[in-house]
């Protein structure tokens, strides 16, 4: 990945973050924190990694993505809108009673959503089913799913992890957004699930620990996923991330797990993101130079 490509991804991720703020502010509620920690991996997936076509959201040969941590719908919707699945202007209708942008992802109303999720622990099982189906069909598609580090406290996740290994789903990439925070506090205080790397290793995964907010790290991780095809081992990314990243007052602040910015906070967040966007545009212009 060239420096210019990295800058372009950063620019896109900044717009995805703006979408998260627009959506949650428009809704007056929702989950900005985990959407912001995941904005970079969502950007990478939809702009570089996945084989998808916004013009054909139901193409059977598309790669699949399941947002197992469904409450981060603002992040997913912002990435999908930015990628062209539906208008960015619709994002502020999130959670409105007449909107197709349901509070949690709905595969039947939102173009580009491959599975309805929201109840934690269930999306990863569906992703396993998709990966198994692709194997049975002899299809070369990949299946990606993003979980929260709080979500994996659900027992069903570990049932799914066993299943992925047992059925040798090396076309499945399980990504855990390890931002370290959940509603009631730090995950290590609420229900400590560490050490995650040795747990996932023991469950038979090709485990990759990386900075989930670094595009060069993400590039390396996805390369390793590609290389693992044929190994019979499913892949797990442990994405070390910062919850709320990109909006200063939301960063690492547990309060911002599930709360919308008010008008004043919205203005500040958008100013910060617009400034970051402008800086990136200048850098890109300089590199194009």
């Amino acid at each position, binding site marked *: 990945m060239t420096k210019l490509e990295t800058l372009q991804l950063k620019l896109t991720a900044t717009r995805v973050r703006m979408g998260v703020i627009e959506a949650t502010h428009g809704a007056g509620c929702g989950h900005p924190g985990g959407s912001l920690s995941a904005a970079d991996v969502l950007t990478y997936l939809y702009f570089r990694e996945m084989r998808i076509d916004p013009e054909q959201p139901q193409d*059977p040969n598309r790669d*699949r993505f*399941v947002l197992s941590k469904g409450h981060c719908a603002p992040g997913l919707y912002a990435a999908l809108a930015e990628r062209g699945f539906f208008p960015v202007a619709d994002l502020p209708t999130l959670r409105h009673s007449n909107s197709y942008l349901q509070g949690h992802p*709905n*595969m*039947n109303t939102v173009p580009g959503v*491959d*599975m*309805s999720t*929201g*109840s934690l*622990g*269930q*999306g*990863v*099982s*569906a*992703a*396993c*089913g*998709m*990966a*198994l*189906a*692709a194997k*049975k*069909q002899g299809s070369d598609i990949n299946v990606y799913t993003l979980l929260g580090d709080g979500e994996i406290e659900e*027992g*069903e996740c570990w*049932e*799914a992890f*066993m*299943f992925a290994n*047992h*059925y040798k789903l090396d076309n499945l990439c399980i990504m855990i957004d390890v931002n370290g925070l959940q509603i009631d506090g730090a995950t290590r205080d609420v229900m400590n699930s560490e050490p995650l790397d040795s747990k996932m290793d023991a469950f038979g995964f090709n485990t990759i620990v990386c900075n989930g907010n670094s595009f060069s790290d993400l590039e390396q991780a996805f390369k390793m996923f590609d290389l693992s095809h044929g190994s019979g081992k499913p892949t797990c990314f442990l994405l070390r991330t910062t919850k709320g990243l990109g909006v200063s007052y939301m960063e690492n602040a547990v309060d911002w797990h599930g709360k919308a910015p008010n008008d004043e906070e919205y203005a500040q967040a958008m100013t910060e993101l617009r400034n970051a966007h402008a800086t990136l545009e200048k850098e890109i212009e300089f590199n194009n130079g």
Partner: protein
Amino acid sequence: MADIKKVATRVSYGNTLVELAQQGADNLVVFDADLAAATKTEIFRKEYPDRHFDCGIAEQNMVGVAAGMSTMGYVPFVSSFAMFVAGRGFEQIRNSIGYPHLNVKIAATHAGLSVGEDGASHQCCEDIALMRSIPGMVVLSPSDDVEARAAVIAAYNYNGPVYLRFSRLATPVFHDPATYEFEIGKGEKLTDGYDIAVISTGLMTNEALRAAVLAKRQGINVRVINMPTIKPIDEEIILTAARECGRIITVEEHSIIGGLGEAVCSVVSEKLPCLVHRIGVQDQFGHSGPANEVLRDYGLSAENIVTAIRDIVRPDNK
């Protein structure tokens, strides 16, 4: 009577999966949770090992995996005991299959008290109530081998989530396969009569038929209605019975809370109020014992149905 064929509907289920596959149902896949020998999906596994997936003792994940697989064009049948798939897997069925209205068939065996010796922990008398409450879920409860086979085929051909309820106990086959026709949402009038209607489902239909014979000896003409579809319920056949018989008894191997009885009550109470007496498992748990003894202990027998019929039709002549 010794020559009456007895088959458990779980066996009908396993056999029909194979038949469907043989007839070209190439997208049919089967999931089980370490109970293939009991649910009889092993019959399918033996013929089509590549299309049978054991999920281990992990029903919640099994339901979700099937949901995901259905989004890729497969028609999964998900099997375990009713207690563990409808019970433990309820929220997964509700959120991962029901809400997106995915084309998954939940085939639960060992429903009701006739599980027998395993006792209350395994005797699920709440599954119909749970499944009925999920928007868009079709709930089928066949009464014998012929009907169970037809129900499996109908479920496969229907596009959407279906819950199928099968039994462990082998019971008489009373339908004629040559003439029997099954349609989702249709009840079946088995005997004509105008003194009282007995509406039954699952294994209880055979008991209702026996009860009708016993009542006839006492001069009471019973209309027996078999109700293989609990949802969507056949309102027409219920309202006709209410109009023509004026009194209804429901019989089910399920809690009287939330099952067939309450489904019938909700139809008549809104459209044509009449007496409905519900025979089923009262607000209590089951216990261990041979299936037929347990059923008798809980009043799920032809003899008890006849007593109820007589009490209602001839209240002054006990």
